[in-house]
Each structure stands twice: as structure tokens, then as C-alpha cells.
């Protein structure tokens, strides 16, 4: 199992993290070493074993599917790096066809 520098760049794009080409080559070496250490997972007999996504005696319960007022709204907006008119403000994304032109960062 190995990962190439191109695959590192692809993963970086998906993860929204900037990685330049020299760093991608270094990361490919480091991550290939990680993947090799994980290889024993492919060596045991897993036939018929149902994967476990939960732990413990109580499993992974879900909360009730009910909507509630957002009590955190005001503090949440206050935490945002930029807010406008009570809403979190983010820059216009030119890749979005209906993005609001000029909705850039507010001081």
C-alpha cells in the first residue's frame, strides 16, 4: 500500500489544505509509511464479520428527531470572525452562480 504525491495533492484539495509540490513528495513518503503499518488489517480473516461502528454496552443512540429553538444563535454569531446583520459573513465564492457579489469580509 502506498500513496503518490499526486494522490496527496488530491487529498489536500478535498481537505481544503494547501500543500505545495515539494511538501506533497515528503508527505507521500511519510503517509506511505503509515499505510504500510496499517496493512496487517487486510491480513486477518474477516469473512462474515459485521462491522461495528458503535462501542460500549449502550451502542450509539440517536437523539430524538425533533427541532428546537437555537438557543446558541446569538453567541454563535458573536464568535464568527465576521458577521453582518446578525448573520455569519463569508466571502463571495465566484464558483457559485448565485453568490452575492461584493459580500466580502466586513471589518
Amino acid at each position, binding site marked *: 500500500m502506498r500513496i503518490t504525491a499526486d494522490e496527496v495533492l488530491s487529498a489536500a484539495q478535498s481537505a481544503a*489544505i494547501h500543500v505545495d509540490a515539494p511538501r506533497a513528495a515528503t508527505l507521500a513518503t511519510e503517509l506511505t509509511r503509515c*499505510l504500510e503499518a496499517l496493512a496487517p488489517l487486510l491480513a486477518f480473516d474477516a469473512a462474515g*464479520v459485521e462491522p461495528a461502528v458503535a*462501542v460500549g454496552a449502550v451502542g450509539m443512540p440517536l437523539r430524538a428527531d425533533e427541532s428546537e429553538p437555537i438557543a446558541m444563535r446569538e453567541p454563535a454569531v458573536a464568535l464568527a470572525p465576521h458577521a453582518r446583520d446578525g448573520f455569519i459573513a463569508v466571502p463571495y465564492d465566484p464558483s457559485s452562480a448565485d453568490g452575492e457579489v461584493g459580500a466580502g469580509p466586513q471589518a
Partner: protein
Amino acid sequence: MTEPEEARRIVEFRDGVLVGERAPQEAVAAALTRMSHVAAEPDDLNLFISVDADAAGGCARDLEVRLGDSEPGTLLGTPIVIGDNLATSTLRTTCGSQMLADYVSPYQATAVQRVRAAGAIVVAKANLDEFGMGVSTTRSAYGATRNPAAPGRVSGGANGGAAAAVAAGCVRVALASDTGGGVRHPAALCGVVGLKPTYGRISRFGLVALAPSLDHVGIVGATVEDVALTLGAVAGHDPLDPTSADVVVEMYVDALGHSLRGTVVGVLRHRDDEAVQPAVRHLCDAAAERFRRLGAEVREVRPPHLHLAQPAYQVIAACEAVSSLARFDGSRFGARVEATSWRTMAERSRSAGFGQEVVRRLLLGTHLLGVARREGLLRRAQQLRALMADDFRTAFASGVHVLFSPTAPGVACISGEAENPEVHAVQERYTAAANLIGVPALSIPVGRADGLPVGGQLIAPHFAERTLFAVASAHERLLFEELGG
């Protein structure tokens, strides 16, 4: 000679407060003085990211008002340190990351709220590897935490600050997170007690998520009794955490001080045991012999899949971290690097805010969930999780009450070695299994090798924390006697 306040047992100090012989301010003042002495030493251990001397003093004065209450609190007047990935509303919560350098949570974690309700006083937030990713506390944006037993060596991780704060005598107890050993590993390397309780035993509400199916809130303490008392204060169902268990909270301190007659201790044998340092193996063998002398039956247990726990943990943790850390994009909170498009802003913010280890693990997780999905490693790790749960169920069903192993395969390494991937890769070999299957595990001191602390790990069935405390306290007492205490 008067015993220093910070060395006083929690129960002893609390009783002193209740009869008017002690004041909570004394304990807070003693903790803060000790913290400043430690920070002023040439080898600053770098234990804390934030200290709140003023608020701590105010809380101590408020507590005096509660002295007349019928339930003044089991941790009355106890100074406590909180790992910096548990939300506090008075101190910032950085997770050891530049990403959250100025983040002050609008709410506090349930575990923090509960220790405060029990009378504890939060004096500081402890250093940790960034977002809990690491085993050395050298990967914090706020510098490395050093080991109080040997400042040239690492404190273990991810929550080395919390463990080292207890080991250095600043406080008796701390709350911190344990995702693959984050409480137990540094507790072992620093020579204190570290508990990862059953999954769901302590609410995770307000714990900044790393890998939600593996994350636990744990406790570091100077003694087994301190940890048992603190668990009694923080355990219990919390409607704010859907994974919190609605299971009755027992009187954990009542489990202390009993004979081990009739107890069966299973010594875990691991396919890779030869990688354990001889001194660690020797001290763990001596601990097993102590269990025998205390009346327990000791037998060997060989779970067939135990050697795969660490790789399974690494796969699941990396994949879950991808979604847990996706929220840090500069939009809603945390650091933002400005740009003219959202995509560029998010990429620049994440690249500037995350350290190298976080980037490495996020790329690994993204790769495993993307291109490498065809290899099926995540599914294999989840299947392994099911098999391992069966292995442990079988062991406990065979009459074993508690399992025992080293906590870490070696003593604290020197700081430079922490970056060696081969050293790094084996540190969670013994601790990760308990996170994968959610059973409680406790690291206890078993002795020292050339002056460096060594820990042994006890593992019990779900919600059997009392069994852990019973075995651990008996061992602690005998070890203390052997050391001439």
C-alpha cells in the same frame, strides 16, 4: 513539619473545610504558588495554556458561602486543571491549536460544569497535542510539555499537560480527553493515575471532537481515591450528549480498600510483547505478583486480535477526524485568513491554523475515505472492532474480572526521539483497544525504571469501574508499603 496543601488528599482537605479548619482559598493559593514555582524553574515544564488566578480566587470565596449546604460537594475546595479541549466559558479553549488561539466558548462542558457543582475550582487549562493528535505533547502550538520526573523527556500524550500538572504537585486532579490513550499514556509516563471510563459514563458534551466513536472524557489523579471521587462527581447521564449512558452511578470510593481474594486478574499477552522494554516488562510482572500476594488469582489471557488494535484505531481515528475538523474553515469561529472567495479563505485558514501532525492525519483520513476506499481499510478496522469486542467478552465470560498489561511499551523517551515515527507508532499499542470497544481502563503507577515512572493498565467490563478501583487501590497500598510509605 506541616504537610503542604497541594499534597493533602481531596477527602482530607474537604473534611478540613467542612469543620472550619481549612479554607478553599488556601488550596487555591497553594496550587497557584506551586504552579508559579514550576513555571519559574529553569526547566519550565510548560504545563498550561491558560491560568485563571482571579476567577479561581473568586470561586473559592463563593464556595465558603456553600459551607452550610446539606450537600456542599464531594470536591469542595479542590483546585482542578482542565485539558484545553474541554469547553470552559471563562478561559479560552485552544485545543493546543493556532486555529482556536482566541476561542472562548459560550458554554462549558458538562464535565466541567459538574466538577464545579461538586465544589472544585478550575485554576488552569492544560497543554495537549494539537486537537489531541499525538502521544508526546510535543505537537502543541503552545510548545512542548516536559516530564516532571525528567524534564529532558516527554510527558506522554496527548494530554501531557494535565498528567504533568498532577505529577508536579500543582493539583490533585485533572480532567482530560482520551481517544486512544490520551489520559492513560501520559499518566503512566508521569507516574500518576489515569482513567478512561466506560464510553458514555462521562458526558462528552463540550469536548471538542476528534473521533467521536473513540473520544472519552477521562480523569488524571494523584491517587486512585482522587480519581474515584472525581468520577463520582462527573459521571452520569446527560441529555445534551446522545451517547451518554443512562446507567446508575455507583459509589466508587466504597470499592477502595477491599481484599482481592476471589478476584481473577488476566495478564494480557500480546503478539508484539517482545517490543516492550525489559524494565517495563519486569515492573509489570512485579505488579502481577503483587496482585497474587493480595489474594487474586492471576492467569494469562491472549485475545487473538489484540495486536491489530493500534492499526484499527489509527484508521478509524483518521477517518472520523476528517469530519470532526471540517468545521474549522474560518467561517463560523476560529482563525480566519482573508481571501476574496470562500474556497480560498477556507484553504488558507486551515493551512495556517493546523499544525503539521493535524495536516498529516487529515490527509491520511481523506485518502482512506477517498482514493484508498477500494482497499477497504475502514471496513476492516470496523470488523476488527467487532472481533475485538468478542475477544474481550470471551475473556470476561471466562471468569476474569480485570485484565492487566503495560500502559505504554516503554518509559518516557527523550524529547528529540518523540518525532521518530517508529517510537510514535507503538505508543498506543496497549491503550487503543479499550477505546475501540468502550470498556473502562485505568493506568496505575507500578514503579520506576532508572527514576522514570512506569504504568500498568487495568481493563474491566463495561461500567465495572468499581472493579478497577478495587484492584488498583489494593495494589497502590501494597506498592506504597514496599516503597517505605
